[in-house]
């Protein structure tokens, strides 16, 4: 995603301030009790996925992707490279796209997690999903959930994304069947229709 220099500085300033506050808090706690150790063995993990609370007992090392796929049967997002390269596992966590194969489930607690499984409203597809179907922006379909989520996040952030922003915004995903041309068409079609902020 293209971020202007001004936006970047603004964002960095706020984040810097926030981390400073948090760091101070953590230092205080650690002085008294030391860092909190989780595991080994199952620990309770509470996740907010697609607006629904999900209580799991899993090992702390379980990724967000595996927690949802293997423990909650939320199988829409796929595991492909399993190390944050291909984007098939892309989810939206607190408004930002993440590679859920490279995010621990315990780190996603207290955050709003959106997966491909939650985008459609019953039988009504999300405009991005509809656009993918209309222009045939998929073949085998295994990269598709990740591309759909990445496109949704891109258009929510940049409703008027330029072609260059779209390419860059979708560069974190890989397709092996070769659906890129049609995915870009779908993203354009969805942009034209407008994508409401989720």
């Amino acid at each position, binding site marked *: 995603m293209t971020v202007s220099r001004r936006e970047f500085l603004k964002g960095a300033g706020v984040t810097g301030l926030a981390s400073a506050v948090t760091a101070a808090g953590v230092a205080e706690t650690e002085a008294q009790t030391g860092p909190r150790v989780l595991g080994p063995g199952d620990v309770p993990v509470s996740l907010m996925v697609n607006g629904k609370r999900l209580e799991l007992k899993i090992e702390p090392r379980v990724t967000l992707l595996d927690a949802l796929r293997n423990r909650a049967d939320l199988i829409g997002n796929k595991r492909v490279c399993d190390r944050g390269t291909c984007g098939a596992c892309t989810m939206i966590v607190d408004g930002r796209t993440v590679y859920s194969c490279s995010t621990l489930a315990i780190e996603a607690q207290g955050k709003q997690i959106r997966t491909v*499984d939650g985008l459609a409203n019953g039988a009504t597809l999300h405009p991005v999903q509809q656009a993918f179907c209309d222009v045939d922006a998929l073949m085998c379909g*295994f990269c598709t959930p990740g591309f759909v989520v990445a496109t949704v996040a891109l258009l929510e952030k940049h409703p008027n994304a330029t072609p260059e922003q779209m390419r860059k915004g979708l560069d974190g995903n890989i397709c092996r069947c070769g659906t890129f041309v049609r995915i870009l068409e779908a993203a354009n079609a969805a942009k034209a229709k407008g994508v409401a902020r989720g």
Partner: protein
Amino acid sequence: MADQQVGGRGGQGGAAPAAAAPKYAWPAKPVLLSTAVKRLDGPDKVTGRARYSYDINRPGMIYGRIVRSPYPHARVVSVDLSAAEKAPGVKAALAWKEPGAQVMYQGDPVAGIAADTEERARDAARLIRVQYEQLPHLNSVEQAMAADAPAVFPGGNVREGSKEETGALDDGFAKAAHVVEATYSTHVITHVCLETHGCVCEWDGDKLTAWISTQAVIQSAQQFAQGLKIPQSNVHCITQYMGGGFGSKFGPDAQGLICAKLAQQAKAPVKLMLDRKEEHLDTGNRPSATAHIRAGVTADGVLTAFDGQSWGTGGAGQPAGFPLPYIYNFPNRRRTHKDVYINAGPQRAMRAPGHPQGCFLTEILMDELADRVKMDPVAFRVKNLPPRGPNAMWADYFASGAKQFGWDKRHPTGDQTPGPIKTGMGVSAHRWGGAGGGSQARVDILSDGSVVVKCGTQDIGTGTRTIVAMVAAETFGLPVSAVKAEIGDSLLPFSGGSGGSTTAASVTPAIRVTSVDALEALCAKVAASLGVEPTELVAEGGRIHVKGNTSKGLAWKDACKLIGTEPISVNGRWQQGLSGSGTSGVQFAEATVDVETGIVKVTRILAIQDCGLVVDKLTAEHQALGGVIAAINFALFEDRLLDRVTGQMVNPNMEWYLLAGMSDVPKIDIVLNNMPERGVIGIGEPPTVSTASAIANAVRNATGATIRSLPLHPHKVLAALEQQKAGGTN
């Protein structure tokens, strides 16, 4: 190696199909066929509802994992499962290789284990102790062919192939005004299926159900039965959705059998999907190809002679065949070939097996020859083509493509524009078979008007489910949504594996024949009720009525009410005359080369492809687009790298095994030449053959430097430019 080497699937095949019985012939004015119909399972795939084998979760399911050889060649001394068996959550463990057995490549499976969670299965796998005695290994073709190479493979590291000779080679070279002599080569790439190989196996007594990621659902059942020594009637394979195969997924392989055995031992369903590293190491690859070629041409541009010695490696004990020379007429020619075995994962068919290699070796040579006689590459190629035919339309495509692409703006070899960015154009031609056969189908028409079409084929992403429904809907005069297509299950009527671009040409005739027969049965009932002859009736626009008199008839639903309690259920099979074989195509590429960094960017591709009768315009064009993009990867990015010392793959992942992303994909124009009179012909493979050669020729045109091997990585581009500065590459 002749075309037959790749299973005959790449052969040109017959040009004109024998005629089918007139009643089965494709409609002269189709309503659905050759139009753009949206993929039926699109909504399931975009919402994540489509459940792939990887997504199957069964009650009580546990997770399997394979232990593999880290060495390219070793003898297994012992496999000790005891520590692993005691690890938390472990439910089953087995040795796949017996002590004394050899492992022939890194990733060769040695043992299997299953535990209640995936994480615990990974932990336990590390506790399996395998002792190896390392043996001498061969990491490269050069090592394997060296005079002092250790004898690793029984019967020799190098296998002499057959020799092909036509005409009189000496006469050919005597007639030549120019001779080009050079060595050309292509590299090894892996399939990188996004859904890795694997399955979920579940036993019910002595019956096995396997949800398997495969291109051949019925053949997988057969192979499970053979591998497990159980009757095929006890095996049920299911593949509703499949995340890419590209020629590498034709059976359960070792991982499927290990999964089934673990499930048997654990008395629980087991999911065993390979991880990304295993996928690179042990699920096939496209073999390398190298040829040392001497070729002659007359002063006015007529090819006279071709003398090629070729070799390649398909890894451990596997051949590396490819057609050579490709397409063009060399009246006097000789070719010898050697298969070279090395200690690396065995090859498997990969999208148009052999053809991208043979095409590249020939097409780069063709541009070098054209330069010698100072001819335009298109005119030079047209001058040396085999005769024009329905399956050999190259001359037409060269002409129309050159016009559409703006070939007249191509500069002679070497872009003289100042600055570091040089632009060039290249061209290449290809062919493929794509014949059909051996598919059965069943069509049920129910009294409520439902139509169910059943065929034991599978949709590997090409849109098979959609074209199955389209053909039946076309025949019944119904919308596509009115037909339910049941595929991807080994209990359905027989159909072949999806390989060789044979699926559309095998399946659609079977559906057509069966649907026509089913419609006849329905028309017999309607005719009796209307008091007309069945032959007077047609099905169109959702009605069955007297031809030319829409009012004398019944709506589909009302017609089906006449069926009664016993549904119309018709079995049928593929018949000759509705499908064809043999396709031709031409592609043009434009690329820029930064001569300071060596980075190549593809800016435009034009792909012209014939494909017989286009079934679904939307999915057919998409396959061509995908083929082109796959070949951009082959040309510019992907490369299986083996460490020179250890023989281990250094990039078994997706960050160092490079694949194109959105920003790497150029403008691509697809022109499909719809030829309904030839019947249905598959085109999953041919569009991926020419692209890399056309790009390489564009790079040559841009820079004046010839790079005779793939991939066109920046360091090779820079080296070629240096060599050119030092005295030319010719």
